[in-house]
């Protein structure tokens, strides 16, 4: 069964991060939220595996209150 990869998997971490921020540049908060929602749906479909998705959801939700 596939597992969520929590080791570094990005080819170019800094490039990805910059691209993500560029993507949101000059957007209102509301536009950023809409963009994020679309991005999540596109990526989720690519991943496909429900076990992996649930694991990612759980980890994203962890400690949300104490941040």
């Amino acid at each position, binding site marked *: 069964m596939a597992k969520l990869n929590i080791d570094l998997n990005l080819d170019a971490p800094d490039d990805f991060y910059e691209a993500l921020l560029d993507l949101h540049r000059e957007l209102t908060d509301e536009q950023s*939220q*809409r963009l994020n*929602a*679309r991005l*999540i*749906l*596109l990526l989720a*479909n690519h991943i496909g595996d429900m076990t992996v998705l649930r694991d990612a959801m759980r980890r994203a939700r962890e400690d949300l209150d104490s941040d």
Partner: protein
Amino acid sequence: MDLLTYRTPPELVTGSAGHYPVIVVGAGPVGLCTAIDLALHGVPCVLLDEAAALSEGSRAICFSKRTLEILDRLGCGAPARAKGVVWNTGKVFHRDELLYEFNLLAEPGHKHPAFINLQQYHLEHVLVERVQQLDNIDARWSSRVVAVKSRKDRVSVTVQTPEGRYIAHCDYLVVADGARSPVRTMLGLEARGQVFRDRFLIADVKVLADFPTERRFWFDPPFHPRQSALLHRQADDVWRIDFQLGWDANPDEERKPERVIPRIQAMLGADLPFTLEWVSVYTFQCRRMEKFTHGRVVFTGDAAHQVSPFGARGANGGIQDSDNLVWKLARVVRGKATTNLLDTYDIERLPAADENILASTRSTDFITPKSNASRLFRDATLHLARRYPFARALVNSGRLSMPHTYTKTPLTTADSDRFSAGLSPGAPAADAPMQNAAGTVWLIDSLGGRFVGLYFAGGAPVDASICTRLHALRNLAEPVHPVLICSPGRLYSWTAEGVEALEDRNGLAAGRYGAAPNTFYLIRPDQHVAARWRQFDLRSTRDAVRRATGGLSPEYTAWQN
């Protein structure tokens, strides 16, 4: 209508309380189906309804393939089909753009279409006419149940009529008196669940328009911004229109024609003349009783569980309750089975209700987003669905009713042979076009109302010993009707008396049942699979029939061995 005339019941003539095997409360689609099915099983019943009229307004409008199969078994399929509107296509719009369309009928070779649309009052009319043909149903109109006393050995109901009150007793009371179920309240029972903070306006509109016969659903349409809307054709040029109103809407105001008519004009166009036949405002609710059977009182349909619409799961689910209940209740009432069999009504139908509630809740969460995050993802899904097919699978404008497969039930016999395809025990039987001496027939019409054994003979001549054993199925304590299915072109003049022979015209039956030569299926009276094997064995079949009638629990088998 003179079909529904009140007549003085015998209790008010003789002054003494009658005792009946079964009393059914509520003559909606579910109560009517229950009464008809009981009558066909040879169980006389009294059917009580507080009104003397068919339902007002269209209410339930979509009837599924599975429901049509059940209606056929009850002798009501043909008139319902004749009156109903067949549709297979659905279209989903976002704003003014078509997002996608779907076809519900994935493959040919079924007697019935995926759905017909028919106003509830038309279906009730068909069912009431059937009730009139059956002399062991005592249908009593203008007869309101005002008190219920449930005892260990019987149930007593007090009935209010225009001429006064009387008491009647029964072995079993079947409750089908709707979502607000007065009988449920009288017994101090509840249906619990979720109320969605939204209101919908539904209208029946008579209009001569040449819109195609398809289901159209809009998210955020230009004629009704920020909300959703549905347009669906019914019989007699009546169209059903649903408008989402939001939680703040005032139901009394919204029902007024001066509010409704402009909304419909905005949708249909101002020039199209129409007449408003019926308007109602409702709130989505998903709830069910903790259990449906309480001693000798059995709840069915909306009285037992309620779902939001947009999935056609209310009436279809309720009719399937009735389908599941009656063959069991008939055997218990006639002393052919113990109450173990009746207990499986809850075991099988509670998960079915949960499945419907889950599907309906998910649809409602999509149509009526409860939070900003929920709306955000809903809108993102709709946006992506225009360009990307994967996102269309996430769009939920109602997941339309499918029959439940009874997976956790003591009545089915687990597979002991290998099946990589076909119908697992508990699944509803599949249909296929067949040929017999009379011409083209449908497999589904040979099933139901009794146990049926389907023997797939393949192409080889049938061994005489198989014929003898198939014939012996008829003489079991619970008789099984034997059906022999042979390959295309192999319908030899087959004369084993009492064994029905069918030719699998296009090989579809063998495919749908995952059958090889000698495969044998045992089908329950409600057309669900009880057991299947790769070879036909009389003893295994007999044990499976006993298990399927509640007489052979796994514990009992273990003890016997």
